[in-house]
């Protein structure tokens, strides 16, 4: 699996078309996940990321596979972007041996060290200081690796955010704090829980650069993360990026997102990251409309096949309960 992950990672790092394909794959897989849950084929809970694909892919493009990435429970998109296969993601979600950690974790818990994905954490904010620690390793060893933490807008109100960034700033650690602002923490719109407009402004508290990034435009995300990575690799310390985006689905499996103001979703659908990037590739002559259709169909086929294979695979066995404790 790990060499396949690496290959998939290199693909999007080197090819703009592959980036488009990967965003589509994420969208299709997340839709499939919601369907699997709706059909009762999977238990527990799940958090999907439709609408946020450009953030996941942008980060994965800008970082190297030797860099470390800390993600949250809303991690399927980032995992696929970093290189994990649909089978390893779906397998995990279904609790199967083929899952990325053998099926013991479920939807919230993915990991693949071959492409730098730390265990995804289901505690809000926990990954922020952990990423600082991964960056510490690079600093101590003198490598030019960086670390990144991807977390939500809601996580910007938890203590670990403050402590993790402050520590990284004072130690000038090579880490990028990526706040994926999808405007909601569970059922609460950000303005109800957070007294400022731009979370990037919190960078001022730590005397580090803070930047607001348009999360619906893949190229802008890649750019911003690349710049932050360059700074980090040059020993200039951490950056806080606030990437504005939107979560098309509800927070988790059971959420219908009835709390959203009317029209908000539609506005964001108008700026769909896949459409924006697809149109750009067409304009650049890198894609045709027909290929766009094909890509969607291929992705659907690949995801359906992965789901079927996962479905037929053995579940995590009893030995996994006691292994790796």
């Amino acid at each position, binding site marked *: 699996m790990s060499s396949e992950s690496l290959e998939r990672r290199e693909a999007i790092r080197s090819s703009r078309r592959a980036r488009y394909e990967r965003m589509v794959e994420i969208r299709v897989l997340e839709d499939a996940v919601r369907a699997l849950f709706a059909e009762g084929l999977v*238990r*527990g*809970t799940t958090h999907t990321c439709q609408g946020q694909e450009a953030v996941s892919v942008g980060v994965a493009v800008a970082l190297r596979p030797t860099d470390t990435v800390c993600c949250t429970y809303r991690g399927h998109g980032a995992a696929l972007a970093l290189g994990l296969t649909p089978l390893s993601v779906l397998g995990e979600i279904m*609790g199967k041996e083929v899952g990325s950690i053998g*099926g*013991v*974790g*479920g*939807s*919230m*818990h993915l990991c693949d060290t071959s492409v730098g994905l730390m265990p995804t*954490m*289901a*505690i*809000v*904010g926990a990954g922020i200081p952990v990423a600082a620690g991964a960056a510490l390793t690079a600093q101590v060893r003198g490598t030019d690796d960086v670390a990144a933490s991807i977390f939500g807008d*809601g*996580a910007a*109100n*938890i*203590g*670990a955010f403050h402590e993790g960034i402050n520590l990284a700033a004072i130690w000038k650690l090579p880490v990028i704090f990526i706040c994926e602002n999808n405007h909601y*923490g*569970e*059922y*609460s719109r950000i303005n*109800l*829980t*957070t007294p400022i407009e731009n979370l990037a402004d919190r960078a001022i508290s730590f005397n580090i650069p803070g930047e607001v990034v348009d999360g619906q435009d893949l190229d802008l995300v890649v750019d911003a993360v690349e710049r932050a990575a360059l700074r980090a690799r040059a020993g200039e310390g951490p950056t806080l990026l606030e990437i504005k985006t939107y979560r098309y689905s509800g927070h988790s499996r059971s959420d219908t997102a009835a*709390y959203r103001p009317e029209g908000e979703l539609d506005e964001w659908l108008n700026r769909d990251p896949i459409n924006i990037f697809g149109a750009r590739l067409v304009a650049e002559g890198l894609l045709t409309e027909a290929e766009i259709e094909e890509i969607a169909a291929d992705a659907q086929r690949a995801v359906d096949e992965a789901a079927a294979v996962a479905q037929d695979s053995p*579940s*995590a066995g*009893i*030995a*996994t*309960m*006691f292994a790796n*404790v």
Partner: protein
Amino acid sequence: MPRMRMNQAITAAIADEMRENPDVVVFGEDVAVAGGPFKTSDGLLEEFGPLRVRDTPISEMGFLGAAVGAAATGLRPVAEIMFIEFIGVALDQVVTEAAKFNYLSGGKVSCPIVVRASAGAGLGFGCQHSQMLDSWLIGNPGLKLAVTSGPGNAYGLMRSAIRDDGPVVVLEPRPLYAMRKEVRTGEDGIISLGKAFKRVEGDDITILALGSTVWASLEAVASAEGWSADVIDLQSLQPWDTEAVLRSVARTGRLATVEEGPLAGGWGAHVTSRVVADLFGELKAPPLRITSPDTHVPFVKELEDLYRPGAAYIAKQISALLETGEVPAHWWESEGAAA
């Protein structure tokens, strides 16, 4: 008596206290507008308004700290920790501040906070969202701890917790939120903290259970062949009903604790050590602890079901104890169990 789900009973208890006492306030993540992630505060915002029912940022340390300060100055906050694991980012406020404020004020500042939290396994939420974690909470002087096992005591314990003048943590086993039963509401429905409830009476052994394991234990007893048991729902762990337990064990001569959670640090050990100290000479068999293995909560249903002590396993362990007079091996110690 109205029939309600456990989450509705919790809501009803909070609402009844809020009606009687304007000092009761409620906050937590998505408890107001959304009525709570598990619908344990549905309708409270509408009835009591936004001054008293509030959504918080994702800031457990912040809002538990605010609960402490509000309680210390006269309110009675009921704060929700969505999954008990999250108290790991805020434990300080509960155990090192709230639980010590009365002592550290020479008795002048009481700190009547209620920290409610969903807890336990059974719904496939994975190992960071499925623990009971009573072991973090039992050994802190000044802090009370209750565990609900259904709508009835969820109502009764919650009202007591809100009325209590010190901090109380109430753990609510998540799979039980949907359990629907008749509930005695009003003053009569109030259950004192520290009181156990005998759910079934029998002769051969005293089974102590808590939360979800109450139901598994009752099922085990219902299917028991050749033996019967007192099944005691402890309801509170801190303080726990020493008297009721000792009385029962003095009669049955045997004790089993049924715990969801690791063997290490589990509440059964605490209770057992006391029973043994007091009733050593009267015990006909060694106390039996039926627990989860010392491992993380697995995601897959079959494994999670194994993790939680089930009726068949409980019956098997108790039967073995009664037959041999010895504590049988845990299932995970049996040959080949983990293969």
